[in-house]
């Protein structure tokens, strides 16, 4: 089963660390990611640039608007995404609790939804609409 894990970064705590300590943690994270890859548990993932680089697309009063933001007022920012191939939720928890990233902020683990049936039904509806 696929699990998508959202890694949050506790920014104030992170900025308190010395550069050496930050580097040590970053290295530990990538070493662990390499282990996940070796063991077949890595199903993809990316780090995210800062929230100031984001563009927000929203539908507002009948029009699509693009603004910058989000304006992260919270002290925890979404730092990256990781996709896991795990046997079940407990296995996913086990893999993430060994991830050095948990020392930098909380992680949220969610099972990937199987949208196959939803996509199939939607395709059927769209086919009907074009006839």
């Amino acid at each position, binding site marked *: *089963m696929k699990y998508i894990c959202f890694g949050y970064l506790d920014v104030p705590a992170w900025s308190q660390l010395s550069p050496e300590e930050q580097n040590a*943690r970053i*290295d*530990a994270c990538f*070493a*662990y990611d390499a*282990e996940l890859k070796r*063991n*077949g548990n890595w199903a993809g993932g990316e780090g995210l640039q800062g929230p100031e680089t984001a563009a927000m697309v929203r539908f507002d009063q009948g029009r699509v608007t693009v603004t910058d933001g989000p304006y992260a007022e919270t002290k925890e920012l979404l730092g990256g995404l990781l996709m896991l191939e795990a*046997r*079940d*939720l*407990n*296995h996913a*928890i*086990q893999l993430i*609790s*060994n991830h*050095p990233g*948990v*020392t930098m902020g909380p992680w949220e683990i969610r*099972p990937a939804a199987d949208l196959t049936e939803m996509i199939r039904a939607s395709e059927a509806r769209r086919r009907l609409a074009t006839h």
Partner: protein
Amino acid sequence: MAPNAPEALAAQLEALYRAEAGRILATLIRLLGDFDLAEDGLHDAFAAALEAWARDGVPDHPRAWLVSAGRFKAIDRLRRRARTDVPMAAVPEPADPDALAGLEAEDPEVADDRLRLIFTCCHPALAPEASAALTLREVCGLTTEAIASAFLTRPTTLAQRIVRAKARIREARIPYEVPGRADMPARLDAVLQVLYLVFNEGYAASSGATLTRPDLSDEAIRLGRLLVELLPDGETMGLLALMLLHEARRPARISPEGDLVLLEDQDRSRWDRSRIAEGRRWLDRAMASGRIGPYTLQAAIAAVHAEAPRAAATDWTRIIGLYHLLGRVAPSPVVELNAAAAVAMRDGPEAGLALIDALLAQGHLADYTPAHAARGDLCRRLGRTGEARAAYARALQLARQEPERRHLARRLAEFP
């Protein structure tokens, strides 16, 4: 040995995983003293087998090979973790500091470690629902999601329960062993309870289409046999008898359409005679043991049903007597409800209905589906149509299992 074709090897490994993963995991937990590390080792070992066996052929003792590969993979992991040297509380320490040294010396030919594992999972320091969840996951190999759906809880709740239970085992340094004689009674009761729970999960024609799990019942029976071999205690034999006698009826319990077939309507020629005979033998030994408890008494009731050639030939007087004994050993409103149903079969629906109404008046069974279904059934037989319809409707409202819902809905539809 000749290298295998990749597809044939993958299929063989899959079959091996189904048959052996539980035993291998139990052995690895004993060797490593850590549930999570053992699980990782198990999966690494099967991945390694796919590669190595394709190259070298399947070894003579595949299980021993996998145990040995699993522990070496786990050592690898520990070493890698030590190298990355991450300051983390979450990294589990092996319970035994000499685990690494012990690993090298262990004989890979190991006895069945699952009993030890069950006793660990059922330690009195853990809550019973945590024990059951842990046993189903670690001993029976169910996923967290499957256990959650069987227990009608959320996977996250269940996952937390399992994580906490594992942490508790680690922190309390609960030894991975079958306890000594002195600790046995308290521990054994918990083990029997969990075993019965596992059996029932497999036996119940349950809420989802895929949730009837004959493999779980088989597993519970297999573990019951092991337990009897190790501890020929009366109630252990009683539980094994009970499971065998119930399991014997499986082929007749579900119609080809997947519907529930009531005991009185079952085709008794489809009952498994060899299971009934084996159950009967264990029941006789349990009865002779002198420790006659609730499992043995329930097995005795199941045996009366199993030995009746036709539903009409059931010895209801004997069953009522056994329910009264059961009510004294393990009193519960559910036992009284079943006794009332037996009285209705012997003395007529009116007598049974009076007992059920008295029970419902006490309030214990107000939300218990079978109580309302039984009441509906007796009212129907007495021609009290309005009351019967109301009782079935209440039962349908409460029912969660799909076949049970269909059965009740059909009964409701039969009324004019």
